[in-house]
Structure formats: structure tokens, C-alpha cells
């Protein structure tokens, strides 16, 4: 199966390397508002969250699009927005559960991640993420890894409980 | 091309901090001019080696050795 972007929120450091890389790669400028991926920071608590496209296999953004501008690209496994067809109604933005769609500051149309289509190394955000909060992996490997990590956590907790008792 | 004597090379090799003195000697001998002295002081040893290689003061091999092994290799090459 094609690779997907997986977000491990606990690892996000809030550095925005993904944001600035995405903006530079796609738009040739460095900014937050031109990026297809976003990072929310809470400096007071030290927490950060990355809001990126989750590559839904049945994307709500495509389902609500009135013109068909937003549609699933089956080869890439991600929904894409055709800028020519987009009428800027923002329904996709409202319905995305992950806040992954933005309004382009110049043409006022919706824009979103396209997995850096054509880049041999894969998406810039995953490539540049220093902490592994964003990875570009096959879903099977992501699932297996997660299971293994979670199982190890349960074993550690059980061992600790046993030592205490 | 011999820019210095073997004695001078030995003196440099034993110095605690050689770079400015070496650049001063090369300027004195007319190997590098004022501007080059300035550039290489700012930018470091590798630039000096490449400059000397370009001028054929030292050979390609001697330049390579100098960058790998450091200034003692360079000063002895300059004393040949």
C-alpha cells in the first residue's frame, strides 16, 4: 500500500520546520500562512500539535465539495484540490476533522497538502521533522510499530506494578 | 618552489600559533598580496592551501596532503 503521513503528537516539539519547509517548497517563500501543514503551540504548557492531512481513504473534504474541485486521487492516496474548479466556499475547511485545509492568502481558494507530489524523497514535512512527529511510512508498518510500542508500555507498567507489590 | 629554508620550516612547525606568521612571510616574499593576506586570515587554512596550489607554488598532491595532515606538511612542502 502507498505510504501515508503519520503524526505522533507527543513527539511534536512545535519547531515548525515542517511549516516553513512546506511553504518554501510549494510557494518559494517562507511563511506560516502559505503552508499546507500547521503547528499549534501552547507555550505555557509546553505542548505542541501538528495539524496535517490525515490521508482519509473516504475524505470528508471531497464528499462536501460542490464542484468536485476537491477529489480523492486514488494513485496518491490523498485528496487534492483543483484550483481551477475551486469556488472558495470553504466547506472542505469546515468539515475536515483535522484542520488540515487552509485558505490561500492570495487567491482566497482552499489549498491543502498534496504529499509534495513528484518529490522522490517524499513529503518535505516528514523529511525535515527533527523529532519523528511526522513520518512517511506504509500504514502497515505504522500500525505494527504502534502495536509494539503500546505493548511494551503495558509490559513496563505491569513489571513496575509487580515490583512494587 | 622553495619559499623558505628547511630551518624556517622547522621553526614554523615548532610554533605555538603559526598562521599569521606564515601569512606574513608569504606576503613578504611576494607570494601573496595584501588583499589575499586579508582574505586568507579571515577564511582560514584551507583557502591558503588552495591559493598556493592554484599558483603552482605547491603541487596538487602537496595541497591534498596539507589539507589532510595540516600545516607541518605545508611548510615542509614550501621548503622544498
Amino acid at each position, binding site marked *: 500500500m502507498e505510504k501515508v503521513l503519520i503524526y505522533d503528537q507527543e*513527539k511534536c*516539539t*512545535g*519547531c*515548525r*520546520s515542517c511549516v*516553513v*519547509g512546506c*511553504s*518554501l*517548497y510549494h*510557494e*518559494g*517563500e*517562507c*511563511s*506560516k*500562512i*502559505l503552508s499546507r501543514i500547521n503547528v*499549534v*503551540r*501552547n*507555550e*505555557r*504548557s*509546553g*505542548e*505542541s500539535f501538528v495539524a496535517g492531512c490525515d490521508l482519509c481513504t473516504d475524505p470528508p473534504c471531497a464528499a462536501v465539495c460542490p464542484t468536485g474541485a476537491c477529489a480523492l486521487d486514488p494513485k496518491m492516496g490523498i485528496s487534492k484540490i483543483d484550483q481551477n474548479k475551486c469556488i472558495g466556499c470553504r466547506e472542505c475547511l469546515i468539515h475536515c476533522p483535522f484542520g488540515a485545509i487552509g485558505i490561500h*492568502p492570495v487567491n482566497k481558494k482552499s489549498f491543502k497538502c498534496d504529499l509534495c507530489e513528484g518529490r522522490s524523497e517524499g513529503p*518535505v514535512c516528514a*523529511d*525535515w521533522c*527533527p*523529532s519523528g512527529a511526522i513520518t512517511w511510512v506504509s500504514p502497515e508498518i505504522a500500525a505494527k510499530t504502534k502495536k509494539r510500542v503500546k505493548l511494551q508500555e503495558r509490559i513496563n507498567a505491569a513489571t513496575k506494578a509487580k515490583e512494587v507489590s | 618552489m622553495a619559499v623558505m629554508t628547511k630551518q624556517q620550516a622547522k621553526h614554523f612547525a615548532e610554533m*605555538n*600559533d*603559526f*598562521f*599569521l606568521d606564515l601569512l606574513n612571510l608569504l606576503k613578504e616574499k611576494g607570494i601573496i598580496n595584501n588583499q589575499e593576506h*586579508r*582574505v586568507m*586570515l*579571515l*577564511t*582560514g*587554512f*584551507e*583557502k*591558503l592551501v588552495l591559493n598556493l596550489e592554484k599558483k603552482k607554488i605547491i603541487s596538487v598532491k602537496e595541497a591534498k596532503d*596539507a*589539507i*589532510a*595532515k*595540516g*600545516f607541518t606538511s*605545508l611548510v615542509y612542502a614550501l621548503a622544498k
Partner: protein
Amino acid sequence: MYGWAGQRLRIDLTKGNIIKEPLSSEYRRKWIGGRGFNSDVIYNEVPPDMDPFDPRTRVCFGMGPISGTAAPSTGRVTVSCKSPLTGGFGDSSMGGHWGAEVKYAGYDQIIIQGRAKKPVYIWMDDDKVEIRDASHLWGKFPRDADTIIKQELKDEDIHIMSIGPAGENLVRFACTFNDIWRAAGRTGHGAVIGSKNLKGIATRGSGSVKIARPKEFFAVCNRLRQMFKNDPMKMGLYEYGSLCLINFANRDGWLPWKNLQYGGTPLANNMSGETHSKTVLKHREGCYACPICCGRFTHINEGKWAGEEFGGPEYEHAVPTGPRVGIIEDANDIWHNARLTNDLGMDGIETGAVISAAMEWYQRGLITAKDTGGLELEWGDEAVVDQLIQDIAYRRGFGNILADGGDRASDKLGLGDKGHYYTITTRGMSLPGDDPRGLGFGYGLSFAVGTRGGCDHLRSLCCLELSGALYPGLNTKILGDERPAKPTTTVGKPYMVYYEENQKTVTDCLNVCCFTTHWSYAVLTQDQLDYFNACTGMDMTLEEFLEVGERVYNLERAYWARLMSGAREDVVPERFTKEPMPQHVDYQTNVGATLPIDEMLPKYYKYRDYEPGTGFPSERTLKKLGLDYVADDIRPLRKRYMSESEQKKKKYYY
């Protein structure tokens, strides 16, 4: 305009004026940005005899052309002023995200002058700038000011620079933060900002930084970011923060114990990055566009401080109010003390340094409990340290004396030269957690000559000797010799310091993080030039680029010359030259070491082309750097510096 925004903001708080000043191409080529812009303004606009709290003084926030771009680590801001601690040139650098936000709002620099009639803060909303009431924020910790401002402006995503209560109370080493926790720690600009009745600057920037050659710029940034993936320093810093240095510092004898009487302690591992990550690390954090992410967020889980949390600490932040004052047994005490200096808004280094100086005065009987308001300054007494940190911030009791810094405190207490022996300062500012008898002789040399005063590791940041062992061949490539990679040798150090100072200065002009290009050498000067040229299109040569570093450095040196500070003041604390390093653990590598500064200083002067008698920059070099007006300024001062009356003066601060 590529890279730069092309303008700076000048805000006069007396008049309430907000002026946008364009920055010409010549100006940007000459100074690049960040520290370069700031140093130029401070030199020209803050005369040597001006009181640091005079309303006419300036405090500058400098961003660079690279700030806010995709190059590695571009969030930093340089804050510069005439220091209330030293009386001389002062600056400091902070990480975070505010610097990028200011660039996106459209400014390369902010200059603050004048004094508001009552507490205010500045709200920069892209091109709309206004001065707002801050009476409800005065007295608040930065974390609370941050929360209130965000609620008031109805935007949780803005970035805010602010001071804490210590700055408001004019503690001479109060500091500045952005994003609550990222501190510009040193030289006391927090107090200058406080003296202007300014609480902070909130910024929303929805613009962008334009790039001259985007594909080329992306290629350079990408290449460098790939290098960071396997970089050994990155891995240590990411995993354990700058606290990854603790065990190395302890082994090599540069971790301050009891005011640098020793270079470490057998229990150092209590506060190592490894221990921190297993006990109190809640989150890792990263500054803007950083591939390293050395930031920490600490949450204390047990003991009397359980529940306290804060962003940080760094090595330099935790050590002074930890081992330097004899605290190591309970690391939670160290984290708590770091939390305090953050919330109160004071330089952790100077706070710990002044307390440890006082403790040594007490140890040696120079002061007694009568002088301290009854406090018994025993090493390692957390209750005393906890109280003193707060007393300093609020200028209470003995804390009020310490709040002016170690050398002024020594004079106030009438301790004479003996008191100054234990303050471990140069030009009035204290050494951080880097004993040069172990950290390295290159660092030691740079402590004597650094242009923000102080035994200051960040003027040279001689990582060619600190991290050199991790990058075999690098010393040879730059210096022509691998032997200087050894910290405790004088071989090659004069040139190393000259090179590193220039390189660090230009790094500060770009305002990128020196962790990417010292500490870690994933980025070299040529790489910086590559991304600078692709970003700005200015196409400098390598020598022009490094010459900017040399220019700014000489300008700062000339600032000190105008204060009659030169060769006679290029000294390190006598502890380093007189006291051989004692042993604290059996695996220590520098037992018996002293700093042979006299073997290195004269040669360094030759590299810098300083005049041997005065230590002032030479006329020849100043002219070469396009600083003719500076040469004119200091020409008449040479004779005065060499006069008998001037020679008799002992200057610990200015």
C-alpha cells in the same frame, strides 16, 4: 526585497511616536542584520557616559535576513543596550518564535527609546502598531502576562516578548523572554526595558520572507537538514538538552562547584540530561525552524516543589543556582530555582554567580550574618538560595545589594580588592558555567577580551576545541592544525579565537542559532554564505561575509575603548591563573590546570591588530573596515588611556 523586510521600527515611548525607517542596501551589506544592526545603533545613539537607565537610552531587538526562513534554526533575536550591569556594551540572544513573527509582520529591527509615563505594552499587528496600557500586567510573571495578552487580543497564536518583575524592579541583570521561556539572559537589558515602563511586545505577522533564488535556497537548506539527521551534537542535544553537557563538564573539570573553587562534584549526574529526561522531562521543544530541538519543558513530580513546571532549563541556566551554590543532592531544588529565575525574569547565570560570590565571602569571613540581614550563607542551603533569588528580584534586604551585581555589591559592602577576587567577573559581568581551566584555553582567552564584558562563552564559542573531537579534520581544515582540538593546550588558540569570534559575530548578524554552526558543525561558514546568498541575492564573497563579523566586533571593542576599557582590563579572574584546579573525582582530566592567558593574549592582539599599549582597535584596521568615524572617535582617547591617572584606576565596572 529578499531576506530582509527592508525597514525597522523606531518607537519613542516618551512621545508615543512610531516611525518606520527604511534600511538601504548599503546599510544591509555593511551590517547584515541582528547584532550588526543593533551594535551600529548602540554605538551611534548611546554615548559612553549615558546612564543605562536614562530615558534617552536605546534598547534594540535585531532580526536577521535569514530570520523566519527555512535555513536551520532561524527564530533568534539579538537584544542590545548599554548594560546596567557592566556600564558598557551589552547584548544577548534569545531563541523562540517571536523573531520570525516580527519578520512576518514586516520588520528587521525594533528600536525602543524614551520612557512611557505608565506601564505599556506594544501590539504589532502586521503594519498596524499601537502602544497599549499594561498597568494590569505590571508585576506579572511572563507566563501570566502572555496568557492575559493573548486573551485580550483574542489570538492564542501570537508571539510575545516580555520582561518579569525583576526587570520592572531594575535588577541590573534582569532579562527578556519571548514565548515565555526563551531567554535573552545576559547584560541586564530586562532592566533597561523595565526602566522604560515597557512590559513587552506582542506580535502577529501574517506576511512572509521572500527568497531571491527559492530552488537554490531550498536545496541548501535541505542538504543541511539531512546532515543534522546523523549529527552527534544534534543527537545529544535533542535527547538530553544542553544538560547533556553535565557529565562531560564534570569529567573535564569545568562544572562550577562552590563558586568555581572546584570544577565539579561527585554527584553531578543528579542533574545530567540523562537523569533529567528520566525524571522531570515533560516535553521536548524547538525554536523556529530548528533541526535540533534542544528545548526542554520540565515538570517536577516529587518532593516539596512537586507540581511546578516551566520551559527549560538550559545547562547555563540550571548550573548557577545549582552546583555553583553547592546544591546537587536534590535535583528538584535545582529545577525549582531555575523556574524561579524564569518567572521572576532574571539572568540565571548572574543570579547564581552573585549568590555564590556572597557565599564565598561568607565562607571566608569577609561578611557575616550581620551584613546579610541574618541569613547564614552556607553552601548548598536551598532555603537560603530560594529566599535570596526572590529577595534579589524584589530588591529586599540583602537581595537589594546583590541585585546590583557582584562587583557593585562588593564595593557597597566595603570588601575591597579581596571581595572582587571572588566575584569571578570581567568588566563587571560573571562567568557562566564554563571554568576555562577545563573547558578550554581558547575559551579562557576569549573571556578576557569579549566585547560584551564578562567571562563570556558566547563571544568566541570556541567549539573547535569543545566539539573538535567529534569532527576529526575540522580543526585542520580551518586552523591548519588538529592539536587545538585539545581544550587544555595553548597551541593554535590565538587564531582559533580570532576565527571563532568573527564567525560567531556573523552568525549573530544572520540571527541563526549558533548551535547549528558551533557546537554542532553541521553548518560551516561556507554553508551560511550559500544560504545567505540564495536567500538575499546579495552574493557576497566569503571574505566580505566574515569581514562583517570583524567589523561588528571591532565596533563593539571601540565602544569599550570610549569607556577607557582596553588592554589593562583584558584580564580573567585571578582564580583561573593563580589556583591550580583541585581534584573532585578520580576520572577528572584537568587536575592542576591553570589558564596560561599570558601565553596567548599578545598573539591574539596581533591577529586583531589591536594596539599593544591600549588594546584599542588600530586605525589601520578600522579604516579597512569602513569605520573611519570610529577611528576619529578613539584617536584622541589613546593618549588619555595611557595617562598616569587613567593607569591608576581599577575598573571593575563602568
